[in-house]
């Protein structure tokens, strides 16, 4: 359950899991601490969109065709 905190911070849980995780968060000090620790990460990732050649057009190396 604790591992859901990263997905929660990034906003990639579906609606049902999101509600479930928030209930967990209410009583879990560990996840509360990690939420604070990770909260700024998405903004850092958003900075990638400001790179001159946005990586969005070319598929990542990991993607097989």
């Amino acid at each position, binding site marked *: 359950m604790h591992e859901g905190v990263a997905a*929660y911070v990034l*906003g990639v*849980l579906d609606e049902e899991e999101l509600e479930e995780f928030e209930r967990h968060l209410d009583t879990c000090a560990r996840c509360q601490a990690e939420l604070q620790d990770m*909260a700024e990460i998405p903004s850092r990732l958003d*900075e990638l969109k*400001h*790179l001159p050649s946005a990586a969005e057009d070319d598929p990542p190396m990991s993607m097989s065709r």
Partner: protein
Amino acid sequence: MCPVLGHLAGKLESTDAEAEHRIAVLYQEFGGPLLRHVRKSTGNDLQWAEDVVQETIVRAWRHSARLQWEPSLIWAWLLTVARRIVIDGRRRKSVRPHEVEPPEVDMLAVPDGSERALSAMVVADALRSLSEEHREVIEQTYLRDRTINEAAEILGIPPGTVKSRLYYGIRALRVLLRDKGVAG
């Protein structure tokens, strides 16, 4: 302010007035910083950012128990709630093609272009330093606006594995960025 008394007073007298007051206090404490933060992810669309802040504040007010948390935790939670509202909004917009945002909105953003590009390169470097497995799940979820379940289907691995890799990947990324002085 005593929340218990406030709550009782609200019940006995005017619930609406008490609610209004609480929302006003939330706006006062978090509204400004939250709006500045949200504007970065709405491509400087001010109207949209204001709507997101409003919805975030109302949601916070509905979960008033969380407002007893310490302010730095409340702030982290508000950022997370606001981000989710932005993401949901973007998903809704993208299913209505005629409302697609002009792609150059970012040009109007804060004019420190070179500094931003530099910071972006640091993040790109950090991402490249991650293991293949960790980088892959960050790319296939957040960076492509996909949920855990959608990414799991594309990657052909169980959702629980995606969630777990994302957790360790984000932790590793956090350490890398902290070492480079990018994440506070």
